[in-house]
C-alpha cells in the first residue's frame, strides 16, 4: 500500500472524528440555549454541573443499562430507531519493544426489540525499537442482529482485515508478510424450541472467505465458502438430573493457491456430544462425552516426520507443495463430581482424551495420543484447623507410524503423580500457622518393543520433587505484622540409561525468610525481609572412576529494607536498600573423618538503593520519579586478585493522567508517560534511553 493511500485513509478517519466532534459541539450549544434538560420536561435539571469521575461511571453504567433495557423492552409498537452511540478513540502505546499508534471508530445503532447494528474502523501502525520492522494494520467490520424482530434470530457480519509486516533481519534481508482477508457470515438461530418436553436450540450458519496473502515471496490465497449447523438439546430426566446433547456439522469448499500451485480445498467435520448433569442432595457433578472428527484437503508445503516444513531437500522432479489430506478424530470423556458430607468436601475429576490424526503426504504419517487424568481433593475444617489434601495423577502416551513405515515408532509414556497437603491453624487471635507438604514424581518411558534393540530412545527418566514449608504470620491490626518462613525442597533427577545417568543428582534447598512490616506512624512505614538460601547438590555416581562430577554447596543471603513516607497527603516517598551476598563452592576433598570439604569458586556481593517520589497534583494528574544505583562485586577465591566490579543505575520521570469530561457525550483522556535512562552492563542500546507511554483519548456520543 502506498504512502498516499495510507494518508488518504488517515485523513478520512480524522474528518469522521472531527465531523462527529462538530456535531457534538453543536448539540452542546443547543443544550446550552435550552439549559441542561436531559429528562425532556422543559425545565433545566437541578444538577447540571460537570461531574467528577465516579459520577461519570455511574452515568455511563446507567446510560448503558437504559439503552439495553430500552431496546430489550421496546416492543413492536415502539419506534423502529432508538438511538446511536459513536465512540472514536486515538492513542499511542510505546515501550522498550515497540511504538504503536492507533485510531478507531465504532458506531452502534440500537433498534426496537433488541436489534442492533454496529460498524467499526480500526487502524494501527507499529515500529520496533530492536529491529528494523514495521507492522501496519487496517480493519473494518459491521454486524447486524435482528433481536426479536423476526421469528428466528438473524446475525449478519462482514469483516475486512489488512496487514503488512516488513522486517529487515540482521543480515539485511527484507521480507514482506502481507495479508488481505475479507469475510461475510450469516447465522440463523432459534432457541428454546420445546418438543415433547425437550428444549432445543437450532443454529444454521454460512460464511464466505476471500484471503490474499504473501510471505517470503510465496503466495498463500484462499477463497472458500462454508455452511454449518448445530442442534443443542436439553431435557430433565429426573429431579436434579438433566441431559444435554449437541450435534454439529460443517462443510467447507473452495480453492487455494500456495506458491505457484492452485487446487480445490474442502473440509468436512462433525461433533457429537452428550452430558448428564446432576445436583442432588450430597452429589453434584456431570458426565460428558464428546467426539469430533474432520477431513481436510488443502495445499501445504512438504513436512518432515516432526511436522515441520521441509523444502530444502525435495526429491528431483517433485514439487515442494503437496495436495495434503488430513484426517483427525478426537474423543473426550469427563466426569466431574463434588460430594458434600456435612463438614467434608470431596471433589473428583476424571478425564480421558484420545486423539488420532493421519496425513497423506506429510512424513508425520499417522499419529495417536492418549491421556488420562485424575484429580481428587479433600477439604474439611477440624476445630480451629482447616485441612486440604489433593492428589493428581496423569498418564499419557503418544505413538507414530512414519509415512511409508510398516511398524509404529514405539510409544512414549509420560506419568505424573502429585500429592499436596495444606494445613492452616489459627494459633492465637492474630497468629496463623500454615504448613504445606508436596511430593511429586514424573516419569518418561520409551516403549521397548522386545525386538532386542531396547527402548526406541535413550530418554527414560524420573524426577522426584518434594517441598515442605512452615509459615507463621502474626498481624496486630494497625500495628506490627511479622512473618517467618521455613522451606525445605528436594529435587532428584534420575536418568535410567547408562548414556545419560552420569548426571543423576540430588539437590536440597533450605530457605529461611523472616520479615516484618511496621506502621510506625500514619505517615511512616518500615519493612524488612531477610532471605537465606542454602543449596546442596550431590551426584549419584560422582564416586565412579571416570565420572568427573563434583558435589557442590551454595549459599545466598539477602536483606531488603524499605521505608515508605507520606509527609503530605499529596507526596509519597519510598526508599529501599538491598544487600546480598552469595557464594558457590565445589567439593574438593574428603578428610580422614569423612567430612566433605569445599572450595569456594565464586563470591558475589551486591548492594542497591532505590528512591521513588510520587506527587499527586490533582485527582487526575500524578507525577512520579524513581532512581536506583547498584554495585556488584564478583570475586574468584581460586584466583586471588581477580575480581569484577560493575555499576548500574536508572532514572525514570513520568506522569499519569486520568481525566473525564462527563456528561451525555463524555470524553476520557487516560495515559501514563515515563522517560527511562539507564546505564550498566545489562543495558542495551534499546533500553538505554527511551520513552514508555500508554495514552488514549476516547469520546462517546
Amino acid at each position, binding site marked *: 500500500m502506498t504512502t498516499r493511500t495510507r494518508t488518504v485513509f488517515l485523513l478520512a478517519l480524522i474528518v469522521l472524528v472531527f465531523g462527529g466532534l462538530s456535531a457534538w459541539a453543536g448539540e452542546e450549544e443547543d443544550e446550552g440555549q435550552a439549559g441542561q434538560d436531559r429528562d425532556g420536561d422543559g425545565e433545566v435539571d437541578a444538577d447540571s454541573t460537570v461531574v467528577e469521575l465516579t459520577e461519570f461511571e455511574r452515568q455511563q453504567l446507567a446510560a448503558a443499562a437504559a439503552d439495553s433495557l430500552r431496546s430489550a423492552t421496546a416492543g413492536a409498537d415502539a419506534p423502529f430507531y432508538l438511538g446511536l452511540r459513536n465512540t472514536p478513540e486515538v492513542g499511542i502505546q510505546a515501550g522498550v519493544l515497540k511504538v504503536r499508534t492507533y485510531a478507531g471508530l465504532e458506531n452502534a445503532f440500537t433498534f426496537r426489540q433488541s436489534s442492533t447494528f454496529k460498524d467499526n474502523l480500526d487502524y494501527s501502525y507499529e515500529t520496533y525499537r530492536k529491529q528494523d520492522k514495521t507492522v501496519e494494520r487496517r480493519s473494518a467490520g459491521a454486524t447486524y442482529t435482528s433481536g426479536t424482530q423476526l421469528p428466528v434470530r438473524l446475525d449478519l457480519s462482514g469483516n475486512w482485515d489488512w496487514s503488512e509486516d516488513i522486517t529487515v533481519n540482521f543480515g539485511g534481508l527484507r521480507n514482506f508478510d502481507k495479508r488481505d482477508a475479507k469475510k461475510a457470515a450469516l447465522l440463523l438461530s432459534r432457541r428454546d424450541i420445546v418438543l415433547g418436553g425437550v428444549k432445543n436450540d437450532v443454529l444454521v450458519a454460512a460464511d464466505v472467505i476471500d484471503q490474499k496473502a504473501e510471505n517470503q515471496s510465496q503466495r498463500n490465497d484462499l477463497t472458500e465458502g462454508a455452511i454449518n449447523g448445530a442442534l443443542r438439546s436439553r431435557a430433565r430426566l429426573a429431579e436434579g438430573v438433566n441431559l444435554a446433547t449437541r450435534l454439529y456439522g460443517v462443510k467447507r469448499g473452495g480453492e487455494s493457491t500456495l506458491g505457484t500451485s492452485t487446487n480445490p480445498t474442502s473440509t468436512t467435520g462433525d461433533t457429537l456430544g452428550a452430558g448428564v448433569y446432576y445436583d442432588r442432595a450430597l452429589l453434584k457433578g456431570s458426565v460428558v462425552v464428546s467426539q469430533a472428527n474432520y477431513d481436510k484437503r488443502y495445499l501445504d508445503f512438504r513436512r518432515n516426520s516432526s511436522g515441520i516444513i521441509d523444502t530444502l531437500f525435495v526429491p528431483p522432479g517433485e514439487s515442494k507443495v503437496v495436495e495434503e489430506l488430513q484426517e483427525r478424530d478426537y474423543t473426550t470423556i469427563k466426569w466431574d463430581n463434588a460430594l458434600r458430607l456435612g463438614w467434608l468436601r470431596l471433589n473428583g475429576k476424571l478425564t480421558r482424551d484420545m486423539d488420532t490424526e493421519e496425513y497423506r503426504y506429510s512424513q508425520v504419517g499417522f499419529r495417536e495420543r492418549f491421556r488420562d487424568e485424575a484429580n481428587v481433593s479433600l477439604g474439611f475444617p477440624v476445630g480451629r484447623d482447616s485441612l486440604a489434601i489433593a492428589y493428581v495423577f496423569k498418564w499419557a502416551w503418544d505413538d507414530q507410524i512414519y509415512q511409508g513405515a510398516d511398524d509404529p515408532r514405539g510409544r512414549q509414556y*509420560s506419568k505424573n503423580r502429585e500429592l499436596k497437603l495444606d494445613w492452616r491453624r489459627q494459633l492465637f487471635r492474630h497468629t496463623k500457622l500454615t504448613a504445606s507438604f508436596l511430593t511429586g514424581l514424573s516419569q518418561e518411558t520409551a516403549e521397548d518393543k522386545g525386538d532386542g534393540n531396547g527402548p526406541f530412545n535413550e530418554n527414560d527418566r524420573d524426577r522426584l520433587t518434594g517441598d515442605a514449608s512452615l509459615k507463621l504470620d502474626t498481624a496486630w491490626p494497625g500495628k506490627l505484622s511479622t512473618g517467618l518462613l521455613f522451606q525445605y525442597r528436594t529435587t532428584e533427577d534420575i536418568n535410567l540409561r547408562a548414556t545419560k545417568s552420569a548426571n543423576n543428582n540430588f539437590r536440597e534447598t533450605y530457605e529461611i525468610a523472616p520479615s516484618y512490616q511496621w506502621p510506625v506512624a500514619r505517615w511512616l512505614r518500615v519493612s524488612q525481609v531477610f532471605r537465606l538460601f542454602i543449596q546442596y547438590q550431590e551426584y549419584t555416581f560422582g564416586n565412579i572412576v571416570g565420572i568427573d562430577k563434583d558435589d557442590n554447596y551454595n549459599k545466598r543471603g539477602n536483606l531488603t529494607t524499605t521505608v515508605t513516607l507520606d509527609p503530605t497527603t499529596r507526596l509519597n516517598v519510598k526508599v529501599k536498600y538491598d544487600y546480598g551476598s552469595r557464594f558457590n563452592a565445589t567439593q574438593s576433598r574428603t578428610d580422614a573423618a569423612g567430612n566433605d570439604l569445599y572450595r569456594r569458586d565464586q563470591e558475589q556481593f551486591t548492594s542497591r538503593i532505590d528512591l521513588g517520589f510520587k506527587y499527586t497534583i490533582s485527582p487526575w494528574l500524578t507525577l512520579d520519579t524513581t532512581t536506583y544505583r547498584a554495585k556488584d562485586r564478583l570475586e574468584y577465591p581460586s584466583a586471588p586478585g581477580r575480581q569484577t566490579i*560493575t555499576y548500574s543505575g536508572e532514572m525514570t520521570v513520568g506522569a499519569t493522567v486520568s481525566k473525564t469530561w462527563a456528561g451525555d457525550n463524555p470524553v476520557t483522556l487516560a495515559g501514563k508517560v515515563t522517560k527511562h535512562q539507564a546505564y550498566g552492563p545489562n543495558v542495551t542500546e534499546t533500553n538505554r534511553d527511551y520513552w514508555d507511554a500508554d495514552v488514549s483519548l476516547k469520546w462517546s456520543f
Partner: protein
Amino acid sequence: MRTRLLLALLVPVLVSGCLFEPREAEPPSTQDAIEYVPRTSPRNVWTNCELALTNADGTGWENAVHESFLYVPDSQTLSQYPGVFATPWGKAREMTFVNAWFSNRPIIQANLLDEEISVPDGSGGRAEWDIIYYLNVTDRQTGSLAKYRARATLVFELKGTYWFLTYWRDESGESDPDDPQVLLPTLGVVRGAFAG
C-alpha cells in the same frame, strides 16, 4: 477430632512413600557423560542449554529453565501456527514440547551463541542478551536437514543460588549462512509443530 486430624496428616505421608518411589538407574558409561557446568553465570546456563540440545537431553533443558519461564514467538511463527500461542507458553508447555521433540531422536548441531556478538555477564541477579542462534537438525527417519537461525532476546535471572533462563523472545529469522538470500525460521516453528 484429634484422631481425625492425625489420620489426615499421616495418611498422605505414608502413602507418598509407596506411590512416589523412583526407578533404579543403570550405572553410567563414562565416555557418554554430558559435561554440564555449574549454573553460576548466565553463560554457563546457555552452555548447558546447548549441551542439552546437542545431546537431546530433556533433563539438562529442564534444569536450565526456571518455573517462571516464558517463551514469546516471532510474527512468522504466529502466522504459521495461529492459535497455538494464544495461551502463554510457560515451562510446562516447554517441557512437553522438548520431551516430544527429543522422543523423535533428532540429530541436533547447535551453535547457540554467535561468536561475533558479545553478551554481558549477570549483574545484580539479572542479565538480558540479544543473540543469534543457529541449529542444524537432521530428521533421523528421513535423513532430511532443517536449519534454524534467528535473532532472540533472552533473560537470565538468579533464583536462589543458581542462574536460570526465564525468558526467550524470538525476534526474527536470519539468513542462511550458506545462502544469504534464504530466510531461515526460528525455533518457534518447531515449538508450534509439537504443540498441536
